[in-house]
C-alpha cells in the first residue's frame, strides 16, 4: 500500500498526525538509528512501514514547490544560506 492511499482524508487525520510526529522524531536522530527509533516508538508495523517510506522518499529537486519558489523569487538554493536582508541578525539556535 502506498501512502497516497491513506492520506489526506479527515478519517486518517489522526493517523497522519501520528506519522508526522514519528517522521520528525526519526529525522531528529542519526540516520543509522532511525529504524531502532521507529521500533521503539511505533508498535504498529504498518504505520512504521509508512513512516519508513516517507523517510526514504527524497523530495523532488524540481517539484512544484521548487518551481513555485523560483517563480516567486524565493529560490530554495539561496534560502538555505544567505538570510534575506530584512533579517540580518540571526539569533543563536535555542
Amino acid at each position, binding site marked *: 500500500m502506498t*501512502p*497516497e492511499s491513506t*492520506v*489526506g482524508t*479527515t478519517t486518517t*487525520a489522526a493517523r*497522519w*498526525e501520528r506519522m*508526522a510526529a514519528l*517522521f*520528525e522524531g526519526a*529525522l*531528529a536522530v542519526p540516520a543509522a538509528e532511525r529504524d531502532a527509533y521507529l521500533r521503539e516508538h511505533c508498535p504498529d508495523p504498518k504505520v512504521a512501514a509508512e513512516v519508513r517510506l*516517507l523517510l526514504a*522518499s527524497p*523530495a*523532488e529537486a524540481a*517539484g*512544484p*514547490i521548487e*518551481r*513555485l*519558489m523560483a*517563480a*516567486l*523569487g*524565493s529560490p*530554495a538554493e539561496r*534560502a*538555505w*544560506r*544567505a*538570510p*534575506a536582508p*530584512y*533579517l540580518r*541578525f*540571526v*539569533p543563536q*539556535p*535555542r
Partner: protein
Amino acid sequence: MTAHPDSASVPGQSHGDGEVTALLRRAHVNRRESLDALVPIVYDTLRRIARQQLAGERRGHTLTATALAHEAYMRLIGLTRIEWRDRAHFFAAAAGAMRRVLIDYASARNAHKRGGGANPVELDLDGIVADDHLEDLLAVHQALALLETVHASAARVVECRVFAGMTIEEAAVALDLSPATVKRHWELARVWLGMHLKAER
C-alpha cells in the same frame, strides 16, 4: 489622514506608531490573534502596492513576491525601530497575506482563461506569477490547505518559505520555533506536498 492610518497611501510614509506595530507588540502575548488581525492589513497593502507599481511601470519589469512583502514592510513600518522578533512576525503575516493575494489572482485568472463570461482579473499579477505557474500555485495552495488540517506548524513553515522567501533560520524566528524544528517541519512538508501533488497528476 484617513480613517485607517495603516492603509498606507503615501509611499515611504511610516506608520510605525500605528495599529501595525501595536499588533506586533501584542503578538508577544497572543501570537495567533495578533497576527491573524495583521494579515488583512498586509493583504490590502500588498494589493495597493501591486496596483500602483503595475500602473506606473512597464510590463516585464520584475515584481517579485518577496520584493512586494518588503515594500509592504516599508509602507506599514518604515524606518521605525522595532524588535527583530516583531519584524519576523510581520513577515510571517505577510506570507499569509501574499498567499491570499496570489490565490485570489490565480483563481480569477484561471476563471477568465476558461471563459464563461468572467471579467478580466482586477489586479493583474502576471509579473509576479506568470500563467505557466498558475497550476503549481493552485496545486500547492490546495495541498497546503490539507496539510494545515494535520500539521498546521509545517504548513506555516511552507508559507513563510514559499510566499515570503524566508530561510530556515528566518522562519524559526518568525514562527517562534527552533531552526532544527523548522527544518524537520520543512522536510515533512516537502514529502507530504510532493506526495499529494503527485497524486493529483
